[in-house]
């Protein structure tokens, strides 16, 4: 795959060179990463943070090759260079560079990997898998664990005479859980919802969570050693990560491109805003969902007729037509008087919104633990409650949803109870139910391959499950390279024939190759790279995702990302015309 096409800026650079303002040899910022013995360091993430007021992405990241060399695109502006490499520290914490400069970045080994190892590295020592699953399920839904502040508190407990007993440590963590519950309640009421005083966001009393925290977060939380990614890196010297910021305050949730790879759409769940970013200039347009109701854009699904938006607050689904930037909203009929909380919509093997054979969009209704439908042509909607799973009653939360390749079934995940199943959209009956061994394993977001294999991200278990929906049998459950990585979603890549797995706790994206059942790692340049879903750009094959730290206090980044993998498998374009969904086409009229 080639570099992203940026013809205008490329033209400008050529023009500057012709005027004698730049030399051909200095057309791109680049350089070399080495240790203090001048040995090349491959695989280092070199980030160019642009100067303020300069157009373009907030930051560009490339990777050093086997010679330690790195190069940014010719369009890269002046800025500051920084490096992230597991087990090394940059000698200069950052290095200002002019555009088209050549820089030598020196690193020294650092056995203590604080600052380069992800939060998941601190959870390796948890003895009981069930404890890890509970911690991830309850805490990592909103922020990485243990974040630096949490580790600082753990050290405070170590250093405080009064908190040397298990009981006092548990009470201290209980206070933290109460604080987090309060924070989350405020966060989710910030945009106009209610502000419950002491609600328990984790869905249970603080005590049990505090007990697990007290046991898990012990020892030298100020250092971490010996962490490795656990699988080969999939990057090369052509890999380019572009990161985009939007105006604060915001609560970025998901990001996606439609037919134009230069137009990036980003949801702000704390408002009624969608940001439209010009990926070349970085210019941002704010698009406001009309109407009196607060939706809180959460889930973004690429449709053949525009951008479909699942809201945080229940009751609606919205669609943006990108050319005219016009909106259409559909109210969703309450289920037995309860508002519908749409979470995921039925997408196909290309991660595009699709319908069943009757033209209905299907969705997971997290508010009622039901499978819902909407006919966008008529506006009619309805839902079917998911039957209880024997032995796993309580805590059910339907989450991910995907359509079968023949458009006859939707598959859904129930994250709260470790279950997934299918619903026949023709007979309107629930059919298959599969319970994972652990009720706290996950799964969250799911996707479907061309050949009908359902891939499930087992959030708590740190595994990938592959289930053959045609043969109705499990193909395999695979340990991810990092079991504490909190895999949030899977996305089938129909061009590369691989699965992309985003993580919430490991600052990385994993790639699973079903042919040899191997994993590879795409590390991300930023700490607290808290990911949600990932999409694949139709034209370029780039990965599109976001850092979606959502609680106001969480100090991690809130950015949208476009990742050009630099691989040779340039996906064939799949335009609106290539896919056909008559119902969706009709609904846009």
């Amino acid at each position, binding site marked *: 795959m080639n570099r992203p096409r940026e013809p205008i800026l490329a033209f400008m650079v050529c023009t500057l060179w012709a005027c004698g303002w730049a030399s051909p040899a200095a057309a791109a910022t680049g350089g070399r990463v080495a240790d203090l013995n001048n040995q090349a360091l491959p695989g280092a993430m070199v980030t160019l943070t642009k100067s303020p007021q300069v157009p373009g992405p907030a930051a560009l990241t490339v990777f050093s090759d086997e010679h330690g060399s790195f190069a940014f695109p010719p369009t890269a502006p002046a800025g500051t260079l920084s490096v992230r490499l597991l087990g090394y520290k940059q000698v200069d914490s950052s290095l200002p560079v002019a555009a088209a400069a050549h820089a030598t970045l020196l690193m020294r080994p650092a056995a203590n990997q604080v600052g380069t190892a992800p939060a998941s590295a601190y959870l390796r020592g948890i003895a009981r898998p069930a404890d890890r699953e509970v911690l991830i399920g309850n805490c990592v839904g909103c922020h990485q664990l243990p974040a630096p502040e949490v580790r600082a508190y753990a050290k405070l407990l170590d250093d405080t005479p009064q908190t040397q007993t298990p009981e006092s440590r548990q009470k201290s963590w209980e206070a933290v859980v109460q604080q987090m519950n309060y924070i989350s309640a405020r966060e989710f009421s910030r945009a106009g*919802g209610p502000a419950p005083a002491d*609600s328990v966001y984790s869905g249970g009393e603080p005590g049990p969570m505090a007990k697990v925290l007290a046991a898990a977060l012990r020892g030298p939380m100020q250092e971490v050693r010996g962490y490795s990614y656990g699988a080969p890196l999939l990057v090369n010297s052509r890999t380019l990560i572009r990161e985009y910021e939007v105006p604060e305050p915001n609560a970025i949730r998901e990001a996606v491109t439609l037919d134009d790879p230069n137009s990036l759409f980003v949801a702000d769940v704390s408002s009624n805003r969608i940001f439209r970013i010009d990926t070349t200039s970085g210019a941002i347009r704010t698009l*406001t969902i009309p109407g009196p109701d607060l939706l809180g854009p959460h889930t973004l699904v690429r449709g053949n007729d525009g951008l479909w938006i699942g809201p945080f607050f229940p009751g609606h689904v919205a669609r943006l037509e990108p050319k005219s930037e016009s909106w259409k909203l559909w109210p969703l009929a309450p289920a037995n008087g309860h508002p519908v909380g749409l979470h995921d919509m039925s997408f196909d093997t290309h991660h595009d919104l699709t319908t069943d054979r009757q033209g209905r969009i299907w969705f997971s209704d997290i508010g009622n633990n039901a499978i819902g439908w909407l006919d966008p042509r008529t506006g009619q909607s309805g839902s079917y409650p998911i039957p209880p799973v024997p032995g796993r009653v309580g805590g059910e939360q339907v989450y991910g949803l995907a359509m079968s390749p023949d458009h006859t079934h939707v598959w859904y995940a129930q994250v709260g109870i470790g279950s997934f199943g299918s619903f026949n959209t023709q007979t309107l009956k629930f059919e298959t139910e599969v319970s994972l061994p652990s009720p706290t394993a996950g799964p969250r977001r799911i996707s479907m391959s061309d050949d009908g294999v359902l891939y499930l991200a087992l959030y708590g278990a740190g595994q990938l499950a592959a289930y053959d929906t045609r043969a109705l049998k499990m193909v395999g459950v695979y340990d991810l390279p990092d079991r504490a990585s909190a895999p949030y979603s899977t996305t089938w890549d129909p061009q590369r024939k691989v699965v992309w797995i985003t993580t919430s706790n490991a600052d990385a994206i994993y790639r699973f190759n079903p042919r040899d059942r191997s994993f590879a790692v795409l590390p991300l340049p930023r700490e607290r790279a808290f990911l949600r879903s990932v999409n694949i750009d139709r034209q370029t094959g780039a990965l599109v995702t976001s850092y979606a730290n959502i609680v106001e206090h969480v100090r991690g980044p809130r950015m949208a990302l476009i990742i050009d993998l630099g691989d040779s498998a340039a996906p064939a374009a799949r335009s609106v015309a290539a896919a056909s969904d008559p119902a969706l086409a009709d609904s846009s009229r």
Partner: protein
Amino acid sequence: MNHRPARSRFVCLGVLGLCIAAATTSAGADESRSRLSPLALQKHCDECHAVDATRIGPPFIAVAIRHRAEGDAAVEPLAQKIIHGGAGNWGDIPMIPNERVTVEEARALARWILSLKSG
């Protein structure tokens, strides 16, 4: 944006996905917050403290009563406690460190706390 007032129920799509909370519990929290100084709100002191009620930490009025006799001498120790946290004065649960509060902000918060009067 003018949005319609909050519904009686809302759905949080966060941790595991769902959290339905009643709207009626918000009044007490908002009233408590309204008594905090703008700086105390800005620095999120309300997450653990109220003016005259025990939450996770002691009520601010209790801190004021205990330390008022010390006069200005109480400002600096309180400011350091705000920044660095720690246990010992009000039980065994350590207060979390607040590294983003500057010394000047912490002193201003301490002075505000010490200025609080009962009732």
